[in-house]
């Protein structure tokens, strides 16, 4: 019943698209950040001075989810 309402209503389809855009990009950023953060922690364990650089590299994949968010907002 709910599925039919969503499919027949254009607003429902938009919401679904927005959810996919944010959801998938969220997963992708998380996956990329996991690997980079692991590497950054490894390097920082040996050299604490790499904290700043490490932090910057860890947050770079965050742009992926921001793009997803922007697309989702444009859709809604």
């Amino acid at each position, binding site marked *: 019943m709910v599925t039919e309402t969503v499919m027949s209503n254009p607003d429902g389809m938009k919401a679904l698209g927005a959810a996919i855009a944010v959801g998938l990009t969220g997963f992708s950023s998380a996956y990329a950040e996991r*690997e*980079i953060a*692991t*590497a*950054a*922690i*490894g*390097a920082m*364990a*040996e*050299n604490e001075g*790499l904290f700043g650089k490490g932090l910057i590299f860890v947050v770079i994949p965050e742009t992926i989810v921001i793009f997803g968010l922007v697309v989702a907002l444009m859709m809604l």
Partner: protein
Amino acid sequence: MRLLQKFKRGKDSGSKGHTNYAYTIPRVRAMKSKLLKKEIYPRLMNMSIDEITRFIGESGYKDDVDELALTYDGVDLVEHSLNRNLSATFRKLLYISEGEVNFLIAEYLKEYDVWNIKTVLRGKYCKASTKEIKESLVAGGSLTYTFLSGLAVKEDYEDIISEFEGTEYYPILKRYDGTNLSDIENQLDKLYYSGLFHVAGSSKTKERKLFAKFIRSGIDIKNMMFLFRLKRSGINDPAMMELIIDGGLEIEVEDIKKMMPLSFEEFIREIEKYSYWKEISDIVHPDMRSLIDVETRLKKYRLKSAASFSHVYPISIVPIMDYIITKQNEVNNLRIIVRGKAANLDDETIKEQLVV
């Protein structure tokens, strides 16, 4: 992807758990950046032994020098600090790695287990004191210092060998009768390499193929250095084939068999076809007196190729292998400098021996 790698590795790969390359490799690279730069060596050459001790006591060897300064001094302090640091560093590699990478490092570092077993047996054979044997141990492999020093305390070799019951070393060690030490030592070395080949050849993952290539090029260099020494001394005895390690990357055992009866001059012509020749071509000639240059060049080539190989495959076992041999080389260089200075060798002779 990881599932695919797991499938390729097969059931008897020996590795356990998730392989943490993402953590291990940056950490190892950071460790490598702390090693002594090549510009440091000329400075060390101008220092006295006490100054060198102070210098390494302020670098990565601080904890070791501080710890051992109460017991030793002078050259012995440097030597023991270097050994202690080497074993601590390699144990750290085993501690920070997991899964496939940990398994491959452990297999590679069995070199130290073999070394320590040989040290203990040799010590007992020469009737060295427990203290002397303990001082010569480098517990860089999977056998702990506690276990090894326990062996050093034992009175006779039968008690030592019985401690290895159930391990892969036992079938070889039980053949030791108190006299055939050199034979047992050779067999232990061969066991180490056959173990490495079993590991490298048991699956087709990228890591294992790279690992195999790295090991095999190392064998080529070892065999070549051995052949140079044999040929320079004019030894053509086919029985020497026993001492050749099988499985080289370019130089196969069959090729070495053909080289064995050759003279030094013919041997030089024969090795011209291998890629290693371009590294040594300018210093090798039939009248050469010393092989130090050749050995230094080949070692340098090994270090250089490991470093460039590690840039080609940054997320693999190679950067870790590169670190291991670079660290071993640093320790060797420092040892050469302090021992050379203690023996009053002139700077030129010491410099010739260094692999920088």
